[in-house]
């Protein structure tokens, strides 16, 4: 197991370097000029030259790459051109909001996905099964930005039940930053009114984000449950006279969950992707919006840094999925 982990971690480093190199060169082979983009057309040439030198943009690309590698080895991702702060600090600042959103979205997807999947499988061919399958198809096909806007239109503009974006209203001061997760921090510091407001802000974006995951998880749960329900041990459990509920929950679902775990991992990765768009729709101050703004402003250090950070998250999620596999299925042994 340890050897396996070491190999996986080494592979992760390789992948991260690959992503970094790819994005680095893609973002620098182009004629676009981030300094000009930042200053506008009328900037004095001396200032442009000075700023270019500050970000090493006046050096050959290969040299820039070596400088970047050297700094990276010391944990330095450079200074963001747009914000003027270290990219690492920016990433750590924006990450908790994305983590909160993606985790809430995943919890919702797991809950609704498994629920729908199990009901679909147990009541195969029924009306509920058809509804669940069709809504899963719709969930996969709906572009996140559009479902987000529709939810805003309904729950914010029309009904006024839920807030329209952000993590907290502007007049409410955020709780002291402990974990960076507004809901958790407000609980820790005992500010229940802030917690309730923060939770309300979280509902719409996480719900929108969960559509895709719910669809994917319910599909795989359904088919995996159908396979398991045909197994002999399920028949045995039934013939022992166990109640149907016990058979389904204890004997079938537990064994059906293995393939579901992979899909949950994939879903979490997809949520990172979806959060880029959801954060834009709901003005959520997270990593996705930071990355999008960096891309739009050609903020090279931020572009490479946030790409690597996202790749790292992705890799960590995949690793956790694989490890939880071994934990859940003792038949798998990693060498």
């Amino acid at each position, binding site marked *: 197991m340890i050897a396996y982990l070491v190999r996986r971690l080494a592979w992760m480093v*390789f992948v991260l370097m690959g992503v970094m190199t790819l994005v680095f060169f893609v973002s620098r082979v182009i004629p*676009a000029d981030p300094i000009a983009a930042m200053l506008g057309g009328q900037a004095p040439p001396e200032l442009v030259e000075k700023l270019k030198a500050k970000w090493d943009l006046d050096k050959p690309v290969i040299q820039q790459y070596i400088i970047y590698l050297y700094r990276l080895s010391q944990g330095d991702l450079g200074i963001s051109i747009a914000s003027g702060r270290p990219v690492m600090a920016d990433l750590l600042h924006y990450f908790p909001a994305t983590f909160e959103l993606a985790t809430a979205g995943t919890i919702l997807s797991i809950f609704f996905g498994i629920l729908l999947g199990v009901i679909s499988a147990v009541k195969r061919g029924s009306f509920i099964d058809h509804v669940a399958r069709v809504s899963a198809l719709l969930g996969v096909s709906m572009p996140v*930005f559009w479902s987000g806007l529709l939810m805003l239109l309904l729950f914010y503009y029309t009904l006024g039940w839920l807030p329209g974006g952000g993590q907290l209203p502007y007049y409410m001061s955020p709780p002291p930053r402990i974990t960076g997760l507004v809901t958790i921090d407000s609980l820790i510091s005992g500010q229940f009114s802030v917690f309730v407001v923060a939770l309300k802000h979280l509902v719409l974006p996480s719900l929108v984000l969960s559509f895709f995951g719910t669809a994917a998880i319910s599909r795989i749960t359904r088919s995996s449950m159908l396979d398991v329900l045909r197994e002999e041990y399920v028949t045995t459990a039934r013939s022992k006279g166990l109640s149907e509920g016990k058979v389904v929950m204890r004997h079938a679902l537990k064994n059906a969950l293995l393939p579901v775990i992979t899909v949950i991992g994939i879903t979490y990765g997809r949520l990172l992707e979806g959060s880029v768009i959801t954060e834009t729709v709901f003005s959520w101050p997270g990593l996705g919006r930071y990355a*999008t703004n960096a891309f739009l402003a050609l903020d090279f250090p931020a572009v490479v840094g946030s*790409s690597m950070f996202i790749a790292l998250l992705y890799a960590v999620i995949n690793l956790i999925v694989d490890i939880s596999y071994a934990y859940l299925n003792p038949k798998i042994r990693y060498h």
Partner: protein
Amino acid sequence: MRRGFLWELWRAIKSTPLSLAGLFIILALIITAIVAPYVAPYDPIATAPLERLKPPSRAHPLGTDQLGRDILSRLLFGAQISLRIAGIVALLAGVSGTIIGLLCGYFGGIVDDLLMRITDIFMAFPQLILAMAISSALGPSLENVIIAISITEWTVFARVARSRAVAIREETYVEAARAVGAGRWRILFRHVLPLSLSPIIVQLSLEMGGIIRTAASLGFLGLGAQPPTPEWGVMVTDGRRYLPGQWWVSTFPGLAIFFTVLGFNLLGDGIRDVLDPRLRRGR
């Protein structure tokens, strides 16, 4: 491809109502794209300030946007754009990925190892974000969206083609062809390629919806096609500011994206069920 293949496909699609619905949506989309210039009531780009933000009416069945452009006309032309993106990406990424995958799988060796590690890197990364990075670097435009998505997409086909080539390489008839003196290129293109096509087609049909959604997402974020292009994602963004009062501006283009992706997904599932023998046996 063998004769009667399309017929078999059609029969299979016909037998499942959902894939039939998908086929109809896609056919409708193709027809829309073809006839758009002849049936669109207005110019999709010309602005009409006096007509701005008009609700759906007889003159403008789907209303007008913030510059007074007819949304129906823009949607019709948008169908051309979406299909063009999906078609060119499928061609670029599908062909290049297939060729690379076949060569890697058939010849193996160090180039194979290297290329597969490269595909691993691509796959270890959320596709949309890579496409965002490439598109922003190249400068957001319709052409660059196509390039960006193709760069993120080819790996999928390379993987599928490679795994087929590896399997077919060991088959006895390939051995036989080699024994009678067929050259490696002849074997590759006459024997390996045709037998690899169906999983690639399955993959292609499954990817189409995702390609269109990614393109629309890039447009929405401002990293794709640029205004005034009547691209659906751009149109949704245009309408965001007017959402509370003028819901039609972003709702209709969103609906168009949704139906298109849904159509491709339904059709893709249908094609997979026909062409993927493993699944067929399971039924």
